[in-house]
């Protein structure tokens, strides 16, 4: 046996040849490595020799299969007899639907009976003598390899692929391009490719609502409907908010007026939802924040600037707004800047004013895009 490394010759292969492989001449000619002793003598199970034990195993296996059948029947019985409204209280699981639990347990026992029975059968009765199968290296022998190469080369030759470059290159081009129409159709049909960034940068607060006349119809002027900025409405009631309603420390979840009249209210809510909070005015450190609010009542976008969860938790003592998704924390007294967490940008503020009827409204939309960052955000 040569000592060069051929692929067949793994570590164990060396050991198998035992003493033949290099021995250390300084040690009393013991082999350098131990050699594989071969399969250990087989130890028989009780059931292999003792017919009684084997019969016991048989009964156990049959018992498990029978258990499965019983559970199957019970499943059917439960399905037809247990009412859907009944519930039971189980240890650990607590209160669960009785039908659901009964179906689950009976089906489980039906399946486990078969499974455990089969495994028990295999372990106690089927032959447990190990079998040896030879392995062969994955590599094909040289003849097969040469044969494969030859078939390919012959094919290339007879197709004249090499000799006719014109065919070669045009085929390459055609194959390279043919998927384009399919790809184009797919991508082109999936979604709008226009005004994508504009959609992300605007919210419903940027547009106005028509003013209704006494007859309930939109008032018209010069052939155009008269409009006014949107009021802040309670979410989900949809009622307008007076400044006096916003008592110190109170929190309002707000949506723009008329949101349910839009084509896709959910799409609008994702961008336009706002949180309205009343603080003591002197707590507010930023002049702009004070100016955009009214006597300490301020409105901020409720959409987290991280990846867009609603920032729903307000901690009154610290004046912090907390996002439940990844715990970004915004300081309400200082432009809602990030004081903790993975978000980078402050929540955008919505300027609010009071109209003649005493209701809060937003004279204009947010000055910057709300929600998660995106590539074209600052363009």
């Amino acid at each position, binding site marked *: 046996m040569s000592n060069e490394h051929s692929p067949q010759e793994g570590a164990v292969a060396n050991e198998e040849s035992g003493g033949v492989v290099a021995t250390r001449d300084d040690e009393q000619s013991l082999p350098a490595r131990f050699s594989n002793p071969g399969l250990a003598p087989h130890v028989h199970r009780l059931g292999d020799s003792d017919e009684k034990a084997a019969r016991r195993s048989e009964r156990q296996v049959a018992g498990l299969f029978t258990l499965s059948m019983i559970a199957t029947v019970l499943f059917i019985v439960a399905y037809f007899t247990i009412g859907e409204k009944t519930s039971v209280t189980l240890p650990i699981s607590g209160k669960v639907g009785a039908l659901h639990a009964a179906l689950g347990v009976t089906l489980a026992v039906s399946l486990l009976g078969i499974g455990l029975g089969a495994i028990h059968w295999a372990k106690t009765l089927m032959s447990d003598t190990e079998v040896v199968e030879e392995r062969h290296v994955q590599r094909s022998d040289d003849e097969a390899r040469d044969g494969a190469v030859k078939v390919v080369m012959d094919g290339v030759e007879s197709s004249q692929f090499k000799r006719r470059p014109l065919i070669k290159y045009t085929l390459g081009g055609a194959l390279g391009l043919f998927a384009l129409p399919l790809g184009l159709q797919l991508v082109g049909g999936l*979604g709008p490719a226009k005004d994508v960034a504009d959609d992300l940068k605007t919210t419903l607060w940027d547009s106005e609502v028509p003013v209704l006349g006494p007859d309930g119809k939109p008032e018209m002027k010069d052939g155009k409907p008269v409009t006014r900025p949107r009021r802040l409405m309670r979410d989900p009631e949809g009622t307008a908010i007076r400044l006096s309603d916003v008592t110190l420390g109170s929190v309002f979840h707000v949506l723009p007026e008329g949101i349910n009249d839009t084509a896709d209210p959910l799409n609008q809510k994702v961008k336009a939802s706002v949180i309205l909070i009343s603080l003591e005015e002197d707590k507010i450190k930023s002049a702009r924040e004070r100016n955009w609010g009214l006597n300490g009542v301020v409105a901020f976008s409720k959409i987290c600037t991280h990846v*867009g969860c609603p920032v729903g938790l307000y901690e009154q003592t610290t004046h912090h707004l907390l996002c439940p998704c990844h715990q970004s924390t915004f300081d309400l007294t200082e432009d809602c800047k990030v004081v903790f967490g993975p978000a980078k940008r402050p929540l955008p503020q919505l300027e609010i004013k009071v109209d003649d009827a005493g209701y809060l409204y937003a004279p204009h939309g947010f000055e910057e895009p709300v929600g998660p960052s995106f590539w074209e955000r600052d363009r």
Partner: protein
Amino acid sequence: MSDTTTARSTADALRADDKKEAPAGNGGPVGAVANWVDERTGAAKGVRFLLKKVFPDHWSFMFGEMAMYSLVVLLITGTFLTFWFVPSMGETTYNGSYVPLQGVQMSEAFASTVKISMDVKGGLLIRQIHHWSALIFLVSIALHMFRVFFTGAFRKPRELNWIIGLLLAMLSMVEGFIGYSLPDDLLSGTGIRAMQGFILSIPVVGTYISYFLFGGGFPGHDIIPRFFTIHVLLLPAVLVGLFTAHILLVMVHKHTQYPGPGRTNKNVVGFPLMPVYAAKAGGFFFVVFGITTLIAGLVTINPIWAYGPYEPTMVTAGSQPDWYMGFADGALRLLPGFLEFTVLGFTFSFNIMIGAILMIPILWTIMGAYPFVEAWVTGDKNEHHILDRPRNQPTRTGLGMAAITFYGILFAACGNDIMAIKFNMSINDITRAFQIGLIIMPPIVFWVTKRLCLSLQRADREMVLHGRESGRIVRTGRGKFFEAHQNLDDFQRWPLVAYDAHAPIELPSATDENGVRRKGARKDRMRARLSHYYFKDRIEPVTPAELEAAHHDGQAHEAIESHPDEAEQGLMHGGAEEIGEAHAYGHPGEHADAGKN
């Protein structure tokens, strides 16, 4: 020759070949069918080949099977669910039997999921089995991967299967996430919203990908139907296809086996598919299905009726994804906000991108490259069918544990809010601790694991050289006590000595015989350095000569009795150290190194 004779002679040939597996007697009904099929397909050859295949037995081989069976359970229960689930975001008002939701506006997807849970008899059970088996599926894939990694089953010729496996793991995660999104409940809607945020963070094309995927702005009306097609058609087809390739390769390679007496690199020792392995594996399918069903019947998961329909302005505290997405969510919680910045007016949100977009591809690339890196470092081009015991590859095992630590910390970080509440700690402190831990823990774990492996290897040497402690205390004539050690027999010893300790590759000289710098010298240097890093600390298996020597010293009870001084005691229980000093390591130059660490 007439047709009938041909047929008979084929069947005869079959019988002649292997009496037991041929259809019984002169056929019988089964034999007749088998004959009919074989005459038209020639399937007998393949069937015989398949049924005689030998599979080695070990508990750790069960994880792959568990994954396979969970996949089957998922396919079965998933098909059931398609009969009732309505993949539509059309608005409807709930008027089913679940009182708290009556009159509530919701999507048809959500309404139909509530219907499956409340009004379809047994529907809830199917839903719960589907969800639980998805969780179990991904757990088994992870455990299966650990098994394959730590035993070195990814080495030649199985690198391809390692890569197919990685694809399976990644796609399974995606499949799970998408399935989780389908009911359109508050929790999953929040998940999709976050996903849209991730997509938006992709430079240049992020906004377009988002608008294409959602058919416009978030949430629009398209995402649920599109996800549905991906979840029930596209990904299952890909998963089943990849899985088939995976398992065919296992057949082609034949299963690996742990070192043991009679097991060599050229054979596979185990049980034939028919009947033992078929009964065990078939039984195991029912066990996996049964246990999943039991859990599903008793432990509620994802009670969407309690969450309510998705409403973009609402969110529940403690919202978390399914466990297998936890590590990505954890990464998002740990990445600091300063990683977002603008250049020339364009926004780069690395605080989001690293965790949500780049991390999985990067991790998967590293994992995919690992077998090739290791093969390059060891310079080993042989096929390997005997698995490594993890302790015999201390560096690989250490790297694996470090990776698991990294993953584990990200995973734990995903629960930072829950921990803060449960343990009444500051969320800031917890998050900071995780951020620091993520950087310092993996190296520490690497070092500890490697040391541990080396100690275990020494313990193996000890066992081989001095046998196992018998628990029998012997009193010598001089009144000294010692514990009698029982030597291992050949079969017990073999698994402990049947490994190769790689030696670091020597650096070939950087210049050729003429003193000219060789090409690739730098690459060689890097390889030698890596190889040194991998294998500088190593423990060689005991050689017959060492055993001989140990027996010579150890067995000499008389000798010990006649040298009652304390130092001699060491030889009775002798650590590898003592032996090592003398002649255990066979590479004295390295030995100082190994001792030092």
